[in-house]
């Protein structure tokens, strides 16, 4: 269908269009016309244009329309040079005869621009070639969009420029990334973090489950203390690192260890934060979706709680990302996510520090087990063997 326009242009231009140029003209879907319709346009009143030999040739209105659209696309192109007004663009080609001087810019569309004389300014061909013949002179730039600039012995004072590919306005990266695109990117980022944390949770549960249990115990028993310990830890991180570096710097051998010490310090902090976050995620998961004890094993229940907890915390970020197309809503949701995540991470970090990375369990709460007093109510002999000591809550705790 679209190829129906091509013969019309070929019939006009002395130098035939290349396949690329023709394809470019066809790029605009608006130029697609039914064959019968295009054929009818040939017979329709045509527009008089200047041909390569400066004579007048006839172009159909459909052809002129498609060339006008191509010119319009060129005008919006960032690599374009300024064009003359629409009515001064020669559709079908133009020749600048030898011995003549023309004020630029000179532009053609759909046919070649032959320069034998002088163009004071830019010479532009859209969908066709600029041919600079011997003795010709272009003081400005010679530009061809979807064609070539053929230096056949003439002089171009400015730049020789050829454009190929998509012609027209090009949205820059920031503009090109539509709201849908930015939302998709934000969702992908937050979802990726969700997946990474779930995988880390599984890894920690498999290989460091005992340490995680230790941090969980610490959190369950002393949440408030863990939170304040977390804040204190955050405040102390920078000074401790500085002290560490200074301490190493005072010794000659220590100086060499500074880079390693910094890396080790950062890794340790990241490890504690991760362990603490996973611990609080597990507690959150257990609270929100308690597992039926018969249905899951202890490890299965822990994994379920971890996945639920991580999903809850990271779900806040995914939710915020889903509203990236609405900046105000996204900002509010992101603020909520930041606040909740910070509180959780701080408490988790504090618990990880208090429990020394889960290696130190908190002292179990003294249990007041029911004691059957009756066997102990036997009379104690005044002399002889001393009766066994009756267990008390405090002594039970010590015995453990």
């Amino acid at each position, binding site marked *: 269908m679209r190829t129906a326009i091509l013969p019309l242009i070929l019939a006009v231009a002395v130098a035939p269009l290349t396949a690329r140029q023709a394809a470019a003209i066809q790029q605009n879907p608006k130029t697609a016309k039914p064959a019968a319709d295009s054929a009818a346009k040939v017979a329709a009143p045509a527009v008089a244009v200047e041909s390569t030999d400066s004579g007048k040739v006839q172009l159909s209105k459909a052809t002129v329309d498609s060339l006008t659209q191509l010119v319009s696309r060129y005008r919006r192109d960032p690599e374009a040079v300024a064009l003359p007004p629409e009515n001064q663009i020669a559709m079908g080609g133009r020749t600048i005869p030898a011995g003549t001087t023309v004020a630029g810019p000179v532009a053609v569309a759909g046919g070649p621009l032959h320069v034998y004389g002088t163009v004071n300014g830019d010479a532009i061909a859209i969908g066709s070639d600029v041919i600079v013949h011997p003795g010709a002179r272009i003081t400005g730039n010679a530009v061809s969009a979807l064609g070539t600039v053929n230096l056949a012995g003439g002089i171009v004072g400015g*730049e020789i420029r050829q454009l190929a*590919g998509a012609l027209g306005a090009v949205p820059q990266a920031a503009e*090109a990334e539509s709201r849908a695109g930015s939302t998709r990117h934000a969702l992908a980022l937050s979802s990726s973090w969700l997946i990474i944390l779930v995988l880390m949770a599984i890894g920690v549960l498999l290989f460091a489950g005992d340490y995680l249990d230790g941090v969980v115990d610490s959190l369950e028993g002393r949440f408030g203390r863990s939170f304040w310990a977390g804040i204190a830890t955050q405040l102390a991180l920078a000074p401790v690192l500085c002290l560490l570096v200074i301490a190493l710097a005072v010794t000659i051998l220590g100086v060499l260890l500074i880079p390693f010490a910094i890396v080790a310090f950062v890794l340790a902090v990241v490890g504690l934060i991760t362990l603490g976050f996973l611990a609080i995620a597990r507690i959150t998961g257990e609270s929100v979706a308690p597992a039926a004890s018969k249905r899951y094993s202890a490890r299965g229940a822990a994994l379920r709680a971890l996945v639920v907890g991580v999903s809850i915390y990271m779900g806040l970020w995914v939710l915020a990302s889903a509203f990236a197309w609405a900046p105000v809503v996204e900002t509010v949701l992101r603020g909520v996510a930041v606040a909740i995540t910070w509180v959780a991470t701080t408490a988790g970090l504090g618990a990880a520090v208090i429990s020394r990375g889960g290696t130190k369990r908190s002292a179990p709460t003294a249990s007041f087990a029911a004691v059957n007093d009756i066997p102990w109510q036997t009379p104690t002999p005044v002399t002889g063997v001393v009766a066994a000591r009756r267990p008390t809550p405090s002594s039970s705790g010590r015995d453990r």
Partner: protein
Amino acid sequence: MSRFFALGLASVAVSVVTSTATAQSWRTLDVARQLTDSAPASVQVVYGTGRIGVRATSNPLLYHMQLRYDATRAQPRHTFDVASRKLQIGMQKSEMRFSGRNDADAGHLQLELSRSAPLDLSLDLGAVESDLDLTGLRISRLHVESGASDAKLRFDSLNATRMSVLEVSLGAASFRGDRLANANARDIRVDAGIGSVELDLGGQWTQDIDLRVDVTLGIVTIHVPSDVGVHVTLDKTLASFDHEGLTERDGGWVSKNWDSAPHKLRVTAETVFGKLSIDKTGR
């Protein structure tokens, strides 16, 4: 509940996969300028990501650039100030981003420069694969700065203009310089962060060369023709020095032919974690 999580994870995976598709608009720009005289010119090339090639042109052109780029991500630049004869060419570096695509989809820049005009050439490259064949060009000064790249530089014939300094500054990169004696530079400086640096000082020696190499972490190999005398001054920390064929003298290392050699190479090297090798067999 488990169905809910399965669906959630599946939707997340789908969103991650689909997010990689972004809008692109690949274009080709071909710009050139006729050579009107052979006056010196200053050329500044900036290119961030993709492949770049630089070579001499056989046509009567001052420059000729063929550039393929994604117009949604970068803006070409090609300005020539006739008065100061300063050419700025390449891509606007600040607007370039990693595309995450493979080489087949990456952009490329091919730059051809005049053989007759003396050039002060400066290349500011980002994460690129560069092939800088400066054979046949007249270069009065060369500065190559590259972030993370695989860079090759070569002079297959003698630079017709004496070069004041040849500077190469690399971030994390693999750099190979071939037949650098043809650069006709008395002063060669190579500064690399992390990576491997291989310098072949073959070619036509017209003068003694001072070579300064500063590599933080990496391997430096210097190939020197056998008839050239070598003197190495090394400042190393936790680094090794392969000094086969060199003997220690006055705090440095010298080749056996140092006193009698027609041309001399003075190497001042500084490396922290790395290895410096001097290959005196030539290439």
